[in-house]
């Protein structure tokens, strides 16, 4: 691939000091960015008049256990202006947190809660970081690779305290 994605070119120009890696697979561009810059890069991509990634289509986690850093938070952005999807990925270690992008896209509110719920990755400055699919007081994070598929307690019925 010789042609560089215009958004990637812009990020590289703007964030010179950070290590940005681009991979292209089946015509989809993924940009690995350092965790510390994720909020600023997102805000830049949202606000830049040529790019205008106004929609956060998806935000999810991936667990690469036993690699270190273990997690990856994946952002899928969409721009109505250029009809383009861009995937950002930030590596996150265990017990580390990520800056919330809720102040840029409201859709991140529930999506980040879900990542927190199922992977246990906390988001800084999230206005309402609670479990979303599982109940309060649930122990463990089911989408982690070291969580058994059938659940740790499938043979021990558990009734949460009310």
């Amino acid at each position, binding site marked *: 691939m010789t042609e560089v994605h215009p958004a990637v070119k812009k990020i590289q120009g703007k964030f010179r000091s950070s290590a940005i890696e681009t991979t292209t*697979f*089946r015509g*989809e561009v*993924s940009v690995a960015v350092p965790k510390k810059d994720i909020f600023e890069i997102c805000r830049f991509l949202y606000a830049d008049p040529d790019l205008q990634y*106004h*929609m*956060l*289509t*998806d935000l*999810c986690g*991936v*667990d690469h256990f036993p690699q270190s850093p273990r997690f990856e938070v*994946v952002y*899928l952005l969409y721009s*109505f202006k250029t*009809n383009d*999807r861009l*995937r950002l990925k930030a590596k996150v270690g265990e017990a580390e947190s990520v800056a919330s992008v809720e102040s840029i*896209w*409201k*859709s991140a*509110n*529930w*999506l980040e809660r*879900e990542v927190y719920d*199922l992977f246990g990755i906390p988001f800084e400055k999230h206005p309402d970081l609670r*479990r*979303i*699919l*599982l*109940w309060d007081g649930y122990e463990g994070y*089911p*989408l982690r690779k070291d*969580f058994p*598929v059938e659940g740790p307690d499938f043979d021990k019925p558990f009734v949460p305290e009310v």
Partner: protein
Amino acid sequence: MAETRLMTINMGPQHPATHGVLRLVLELDGEIIVKATPHIGHLHRGVEKLAEARTYHQVIPLTDRLDYTNAMGNNLAYVLAVEKLLGIEVPKRAQYLRVMMAELQRIAAHLIWLGTHALDIGAMTLLFYNFREREDILRIFEEVSGGRLTPTYLRIGGVAKDLPEGIEGKIRAFVEAFPGHMKDYETLLTKNVIWLKRTKGVGIISKEDAINWGVTGPTLRGSGVKWDVRKAFPYSSYEDFEFDIPTGSVGDVYDRYYVRLREMEWANSIVKQTLDRLPKGPILADDPKVVLPEKEMVLTDIASLIRQFKIASEGFQAPKGEVYASVEAAKGELGFYVVSDGSNRPFRVRIRPPSFLNLSALPKMIEGSLIADVVATIGSIDIVLGEIDR
């Protein structure tokens, strides 16, 4: 001095108008909603986790059970993602069959929505009409795939089997009768004063807010954004068909209602176009390492039997990489983000559910409005908890 305070009431999870197991905690000032907090997860089955423990083919039945009113669309989104990962090309006939089924399913899904939404607001008649027509579609699905609600008709590389004999006439009969049924529905609602009073100016969300909240599908188009995955990123030969993207203007319950009705008409038109132009040819891609052989071959040919056994038990190795594929499902953009580590099971299957994000914007739509409008608004965003909770 009389003391005034907010009243908190609980709505659901067992409530006929929340369309499943949605629980809402509403804080009320008199009849005005000050704050609404949705609680979800009652139907959480861990589909994304289960998918990691299965081979690629075995995930297809799980997708049926996400948005159970739109099973064909869910199948389609998943197989598109896997096909993209593998880089295989699906024959034209299979692509057309997929479009035909997906659009019939869209009509069926919108019919359920219309019937239940109208029932919530008090127009009961429509439900019976809608289920009558939906039944026709389910019978077609049953003949085509063997299943009604969960057909699991699509396969990686094509579809499970070709159309049975005589079904095309039945589909055509449905397609030709449907515009007449649409007229019935519209006579009952579109200019009905009670309907207008309950839906106009209710549950408004602006264009900018809808985009910012990640809202997609008819709910987004109701707010006036002319955007549809079928047009923005055409898949499965959608570029071959003529259709328009209906939009609303205000973004209220009525606009969303109106957009969905127009969508049904276009879906009906697309089904007709697929029938008229259905090409001849194979229904499965020619890739023996990945694609399950046709059932008839399995029963008559030993090599196909071995192949069936190998693929069904071991699956196939997918190349290392990650892909995202999405379709315009009945509720909005349904996407699958599949990460492969090169083994025979997906490393990660992330489902991007449209209803999840549409529902997250519900408080935005109803805060400040009357409690009676909550039900109308929930109905209008057309949620299915099966895909919200996964």
